[in-house]
Each structure stands twice: as structure tokens, then as C-alpha cells.
């Protein structure tokens, strides 16, 4: 449960350490119960759920990977990126390009290129004939893009809301370009109509179940990997830089480098998520990765608890499931609910549900969670 490792808030006080240790172990046992149950339930889901709910769950689990990325970037490093859709899209498109080529008969061009008057496969499409290359690009492309964007921003110490604005503008530009470059990207239609992936029939009866397992596995690995990374001094340094960038800098750390690294990690996780989501949905289009997606991601992460990986992933899963239900039952009400959630969560639940649970678990019944530290640029600037 505890993902903050050495930054733990519940460490025993000196002098009472023996007793406190055993109390901590008991806590851990109690705290580990729910995650175990959740993982068990997810593992058993395919044997219980009908095909639509299972597909829905799989899809949502794929999105949870992007939520992990947002938790690293925002929850840990304090960078509010409103452009995670860009990386999600790069991962999705990297895979979609391969799937499209795989679905196109040998020697022919993808149909949308033909219909856009293109008569030669563009150079950057060529290597995507290879599945391993495409899989590599699923993480390399978003990683590289995140590196480049992060480097440009953090090197020049662009922080806070400026980062939010620029990332939002970038995702908008990306989506606009995707929509306009129809011959290269299939435009606003997006890339669709996939048939096979590495020999698997995407439309076969077993595929959705296999995909569910694969998603669960990748989510699990991503979760464990991210938790591990955040447990190293790297994780503490991200917190340190978020709390007080100058202090870290004048201790000899280069905050820009750490922020870029966090941004890249977040980008790679988003890319993975995008590729899986593309497989689940059978299509990727600019509409899926735009500003709305990027902001929605942030809301679910905020609701669940941005500082906790469990919170972020759980917020995404439950939020998306709720969206599926409520938007069917009361489409008009849904946007009001979303909007109200934004406001209420940041005003009354800044650490999300996970923060609330944590303060309950750590014994302080009724104790309010400590407010997140102010963002440094404000503390200094006002």
C-alpha cells in the first residue's frame, strides 16, 4: 500500500521503536488486505464478467497506466501537465501504424493514403512494418517527445501554470496537425480497421480475454516498476524539488534533469497506455488524445489521490466506470457532475480519496490531512 517508501509518515518514533514496529507490521497487514483483494478480483474478472463489462474493465485498466504516469509527474514532481494526451497519442499511433500496415495487403498503401492522393508510403511509415520496431516505438517515441519538451521547458525554468499552458497548447497543436495531415495520419478519422497483431486475430473470439490478461500484466509491471523507482532516492529528490526547487539546486542537484526524467517516465507510461487502449478500442483518432482527454486524466488522478499510485490508478478506473454508467443514464447531467467534481475535489479533497484513507488508516480518526505544500513559485512570488 505504502508507495512512498522512505518518505513514510508512519514511521515509529525513537524510544518506542519495538512496539511501534509491531504496530506498523499490523498496519501493513491490514493495509495489504485490500490491495490483495483488488488484485485477486481483477485476476478472476474474466471468469465472472460478460463480454461487455470485461472489455470495459480492460479498457479502463489500460487507462490506469496513464494515471500512474500522471501521478509521477504531477503527484510526485509537482508538474501539472495538461498535455499527457500527446504521449498517449504517440504510443497509440506508433502501434496503430503497425496494425494498419499489417492489415494492408502486400504492395498496397493503407486505404486512407490512397484516398488522400498519396502514392508512396511516407518514409516514417516504412519501419513500422516491423512489429518489434513498432513495440519499441510505443515507448521510445513518447519518451523522446517528453524528453525534448521537458528539456526545453525545464532547462529554461518554466514552471507552474506556464507548464500547464504550454503542454496544453502543444497537445492542441499535435491534434490539429494530426487532423490536418490526412494523407499521413488519416486525419480526424484516425487509424482504424485493424485485423491482426503478431499473428493474433484481433477480431477472434478469444482475443478480448487475452488482451485483458496482457493489460493486467502490463499494468502490474508498470505499477511495480513505478513504485520501485519512486522508492529510490530519485523519488525523494522529486519530492524535494517539488517542495523547494532552490534548496535542491543549491545542494548541487540539477532540478531540470530530475524533472525531465520524471516527465519522461510519465510520457512512457502514457505511451504504453495509449498503445493498449488502441488495441482495446480497435482505433485511435485525434479526438481520443486531445485537451479533453488530458484534463480528464488529471481529474481522475486528483480524485483518487495524486500522490499515491493506488489512488491515481484507482481514481482512473472508478471514474471511467462511473462515466460509462452515468453518461448512459443521464447524458446531460454527466458534464455537470464532472465539472462539480473538479471543483469539489480540489477544494475539499486536495489529496484525493487516497489521502483521506491514509489519514484514517494512520490512526488519526478525524485528523485532517496535512495540506500539500504550496507550489514553490507561488510561495516565493507572492
Amino acid at each position, binding site marked *: 500500500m505504502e508507495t512512498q517508501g522512505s518518505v513514510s509518515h508512519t514511521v515509529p518514533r525513537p524510544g518506542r521503536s519495538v512496539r511501534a514496529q509491531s504496530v506498523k507490521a499490523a498496519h501493513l497487514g491490514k493495509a495489504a488486505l485490500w490491495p490483495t483483494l483488488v488484485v485477486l478480483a481483477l485476476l478472476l474478472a474474466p471468469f465472472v464478467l*460478460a*463480454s*461487455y*463489462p470485461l*472489455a*470495459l474493465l480492460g*479498457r479502463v485498466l489500460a487507462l490506469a497506466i496513464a494515471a500512474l504516469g500522471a501521478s509521477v509527474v504531477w503527484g510526485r514532481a509537482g508538474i501539472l501537465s495538461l498535455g499527457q494526451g500527446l504521449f498517449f497519442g504517440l504510443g497509440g499511433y506508433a502501434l496503430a501504424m503497425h496494425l494498419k500496415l499489417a492489415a494492408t495487403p502486400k504492395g498496397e498503401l493503407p*486505404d*486512407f493514403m*490512397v*484516398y*488522400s*492522393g498519396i502514392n508512396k508510403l511516407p518514409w516514417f511509415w516504412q519501419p513500422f512494418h516491423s512489429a518489434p520496431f513498432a513495440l519499441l516505438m510505443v515507448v521510445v517515441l513518447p519518451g523522446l517527445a517528453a524528453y525534448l519538451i521537458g528539456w526545453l521547458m525545464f532547462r529554461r525554468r518554466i514552471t507552474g501554470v506556464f507548464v500547464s499552458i504550454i503542454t496544453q497548447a502543444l497537445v492542441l497543436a499535435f491534434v*490539429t496537425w494530426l*487532423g*490536418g495531415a*490526412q494523407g499521413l495520419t*488519416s*486525419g*480526424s*478519422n*484516425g487509424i*482504424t*480497421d*485493424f485485423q491482426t497483431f503478431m499473428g493474433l486475430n484481433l*477480431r477472434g473470439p478469444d482475443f478480448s480475454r487475452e488482451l485483458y490478461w496482457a493489460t493486467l500484466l502490463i499494468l502490474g509491471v508498470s505499477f511495480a516498476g513505478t513504485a520501485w523507482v519512486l522508492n529510490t532516492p530519485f523519488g525523494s529528490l522529486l519530492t524535494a524539488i517539488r517542495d523547494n526547487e532552490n534548496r535542491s539546486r543549491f545542494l548541487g542537484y540539477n532540478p531540470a534533469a530530475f524533472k525531465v526524467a520524471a516527465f519522461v517516465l510519465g510520457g512512457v507510461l502514457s505511451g504504453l497506455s495509449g498503445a493498449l487502449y488502441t488495441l482495446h*478500442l*480497435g*482505433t485511435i*483518432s485525434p*479526438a*481520443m488524445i486531445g485537451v*479533453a482527454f488530458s484534463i480528464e486524466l488529471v481529474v481522475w488522478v486528483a480524485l483518487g489521490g495524486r500522490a499515491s499510485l493506488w489512488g491515481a490508478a484507482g481514481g482512473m478506473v472508478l471514474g471511467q466506470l462511473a462515466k*460509462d454508467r452515468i*453518461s*448512459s443514464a443521464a*447524458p*446531460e447531467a*454527466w*458534464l455537470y457532475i464532472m465539472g462539480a467534481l473538479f471543483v469539489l475535489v480540489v477544494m475539499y479533497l486536495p489529496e484525493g480519496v487516497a489521502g483521506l484513507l491514509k489519514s484514517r488508516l494512520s490512526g488519526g480518526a478525524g485528523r485532517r490531512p496535512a495540506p500539500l505544500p504550496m507550489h514553490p513559485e507561488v510561495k516565493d512570488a507572492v
Partner: protein
Amino acid sequence: MTYRNLTASLTLLLLGNALAQGTVKVGVLHSLTGTMAISEITVANAAQLAVDEINAAGGVMGKKIQVIKEDGASDWPTFATKAEKLLTQDKVAAVFGGWTSASRKAMLPVFEKNKGLLFYPVQFEGNECSPNIIYTGAQPNQQALPALEWALSKGYKNIFLLGSDYVYPRTANLILKKHIAAKGTNLAGEEYVALGGTEFSSVINKIKAAKPDVIINTLNGDSNVSFFKQYQAAGYSAATLPVISFSIAEQEAQSIGPALLTGQYATWNYFQSLPNAANKKFVAAYQKKYGAKAAITDPMAHAYMDVYLWKAAVEKAKSFDPVAVRKAIVGVSTDSPLGKITVDKNGSLTQTVYTGQSGAGGQFKVVAQSGGVIAPQPYDALAFPGKTCP
């Protein structure tokens, strides 16, 4: 009331819709929220109207139609997930829905995978031929090309293509450009504005520099309002530079404001002003249910008729199975508000094309119509040689 009818009514009263074999489910999947809602809600209404009429008249093969309405939320991936829900969870016999090409493209794999049947009511760019979709809106040869021919026949030689930046305008214009070149006439310019864009200053400046005789307009939605406002402010009017639009129907004309649009042209398979009897009945029924001022548009007429087409095909197939219905629907012909239409074996309609001129009250007066019905060509032979439906 005969004894037989009485028993039937009593049974219905007692068991209601809970009786599974008494109803057949269909899905209506349109954007009820978001930017597309304004267009799509009325299309969903038209489909609902047809269902109500059919139910009132006894249903299909003795079964009442039960509509499951889902919201695509103007978000294409949502169309895919909701389509999946309709097919795998609700197990509907057919789905009526979609507006944008992107939403259709998102739904296509879902319908193919689950062997469902989708009725798609909107004009589109062609280049698609799924066995699981019935495309009743105009193919490019049933809207764009007749419009071009009409423009040429009026002596307009210099043609400017203006559209929103998405697949339909770009593909339609690609086809138009091939035909413009083949006919030896002149392309004055081509420009695209982001969906929902409202700033046309540069575009109008480019139009001014290109000096065209006519503009073929594939702008979508509100961009049209901005364009015609700024076009008029720059000193243009239908008399000085006519515009032929493919996405402006009665409803859009109302919101643009008839004053800005007076004298401009639109090409469709249907106008509210069509005088045939089926149309008069449809318009009256719709306005009775949804308001006397409600504008009726081409996609609405298609959506309304789609339900009747499906009913005819079900009755011909004597089955609700989508595969059987798809097989049976080829050749089905009816007198609809659009006039006489027939389903081609490629899943599209053989239908008539009209060019209308905008007048007062946002209505269009038909000024030209195709000589008879035009068979659908999903793949333009000039632009995409060698492509055909399987």
C-alpha cells in the same frame, strides 16, 4: 374491436414490454451531448418518430420495436464503446446512428467483429464499403459531383474549395479537384479551417486574391455562421460570389440567419420543401411531435427512412438476424420523403439529387435536380481508379 385484437391488447396490457418475444430491440446511437448534439438529436428524433409510427401500426413482424438510446457524446471513441455495448450487452437487431465519418470509422470494427448492422444516415466521402453498414446518405457522386456539374453548367469556371479540416471536405475536394482538372476548368484555390474555427479573415483575403467565380463550401457547423458573416462584411453576396454548400441544410440556414444566406445554394438528396406526399406526411408528423417550427433536414429524412428500410428488409428476410437482413435489403425500394429510393447491392441508396437556393425563412427552393435517380458510387472512378466494393 375484434375478439382477436382484444386478446392481443389484454396480453400486452398484462405482460407489457417485459415479454421478450413481444419486442425487438434496436439501438439509436447519436451525440446527445457535446458539439454535435444539435445536429444529431434531431436525427435521433426522426428515427424515434419512425419507430413510433411503426409501433402504432403494429410493429415489425408482430413485434414492437424497443429503442435503446445511447449517447455518443460527440466523442468518436465513445461511439465505438457504446456500439459495443448495444451489440454485446443489449443484443440489438440493428443500430441507427453516427454522423461524422470519424464516428463511423470508430464503430466499423465493432460492427464487423460482432456481425451487427448499422444504418448511417449522413452524406459522406465514400471510399468505404463495409458489409455491416448501410450507407443511406449521399455518396460523393450523389452530392459533390452533381453540384460541380451544375456550377459548370451555370458558367462558373473558376472554383474555390473551402472546407473544415477533416476527412469529408478533404476527400470530397480531392475528388472534385480530379474532376475539375479532367473538365479542363480552373481551381482558383483550396483552404481548410480547423473544425469550429471562427476566424476567416485570412481565408477571405485569399479568396479575394484568387478571384473565383464560385465557392464550393464544405465547412461544418458554426464555422459557416462566422464565414458568411465575415464574407458579407467583406462586401460579398450571393450576387457577387455565389457559394454552394454541402453541409448547410434548413436547420443550419436558420442558425446562420436567412439574411446572410439569401440566394446561396446547397445540394442535397432532400429539402424540406419537396412537394411529394410522403414528405408532407413526414414533415407534419415531425412538427407535430417536436414543434411546429422544427426544421427538417436531409440527414433527418434519411434517418427516418432508414427505420422503414430496415422494417421492409426484416419482413422480406422474415428474420431479425442482421446477416439475413443485410442480404435481404438489396433491391428494397420505397417511396420515401426523398422520393423513390432503392438499396443498391453495395449497401448505399440509389437516389435523386437536388440543388436548392436559399430564400426567406431558411427554406430552400429547388432550382435544379438530377435527371432521375443516381446510382451510388462509393469509389470515384476518376480519383481512385480500380477501387470497387467487394
